[in-house]
């Protein structure tokens, strides 16, 4: 423990940041159950490691870093399951998402989330971090190990894609 600041309590961190972390996990994975698991693991890690952070902004950054890694692992696992499934059925990769649906345990009733699920992962994750993480392009770039201008382009392309999908949904 340092002298300049007192560590913020876990309760404060949880009460203040749960909404952010859960929203990010849910918007990226599109699955409530998975979002609960990921939020739980992120906060549990925070609880156990008890990083000595001076303010909520840094606690948020710390938690988002853990959360985006867990979301990424989930995405890889989903892709693996999908491949295993298609291999098992000896079916070629189909352009639509019927294989995917088998692994969506809770299909979202939200129109926005359904559209978001269709946005490619590398755009979706950046867009979600921007919209829900209260982070700027530089911070997102640092988190993901990409340049600021790459973040700018992905946020834009994510929005463009989402707008297109939402428009299509209206028709």
């Amino acid at each position, binding site marked *: 423990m340092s002298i300049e600041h007192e560590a913020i309590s876990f309760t404060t961190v949880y009460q203040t940041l749960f909404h952010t972390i*859960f929203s990010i996990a849910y918007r990226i994975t599109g699955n409530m159950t998975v979002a609960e698991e990921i939020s*739980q693991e992120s906060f549990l890690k925070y609880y*156990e490691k008890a990083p000595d952070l001076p303010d909520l902004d840094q606690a948020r950054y710390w938690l988002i870093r853990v959360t985006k890694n867990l979301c990424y692992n989930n995405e890889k696992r989903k892709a693996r399951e999908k491949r295993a499934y298609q291999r098992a059925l000896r079916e070629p990769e189909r352009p639509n998402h019927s294989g995917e649906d088998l692994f969506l345990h809770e299909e979202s009733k939200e129109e*926005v989330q359904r559209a978001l699920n269709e946005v490619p992962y590398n755009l979706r994750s950046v867009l979600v971090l921007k*919209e829900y993480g209260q982070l700027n392009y530089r911070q997102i770039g640092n988190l993901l190990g990409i340049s600021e201008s790459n973040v700018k382009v992905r*946020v834009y392309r994510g929005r463009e894609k*989402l*707008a297109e999908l939402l428009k299509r949904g209206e028709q």
Partner: protein
Amino acid sequence: MMCPNESTLSAYLDGELSTERMQEITEHVKDCRKCKVTLEQLDQTRISLHEADIPAFEAHKRRVYEGILYAHRRGADGFWARRIGLPMPVVLAASALFLVFAGGFIYFLGQNSALQRQPTQLLYANESIQGLHSSSVMIPEFLDQGRESNEVIIEIPGEQEFMIIGEPALIRENEQWNQVVR
């Protein structure tokens, strides 16, 4: 001024441009219908995302919190399997080990009985370890062996053919298992 490209308009929404550039675009959009429409479309996605409430939010919040407390308590279970660097005089090591085992034993008893968990006893054992500070002793690995009662055996019928979907760890286990069977 030339029309800014669309990714710049998107960055404008995020306030990610220099002050001068922000002002230029504010002025430009007043007169340029095309850019105004693009900006509105991009902004609409933000509005849609933020308007959409996540259903039953408070219920998730409560459930995850309970999950954390529960997982943490169970984490104390894993505590017995871990190697722990304990700062304490050698003489105290034996008594601490005794406390660990006594605590662990009572804990396992408690687990096996109808009363699932007995946190008071667990806490007791934890405290007696945390209370000791000075020179350093490693609790030997045979602490790990105290976990036999927690082992789970899964039997798989020999003739069945399985399609494994899931973690590679599971697939590997299965392959190793097949080799052993053969």
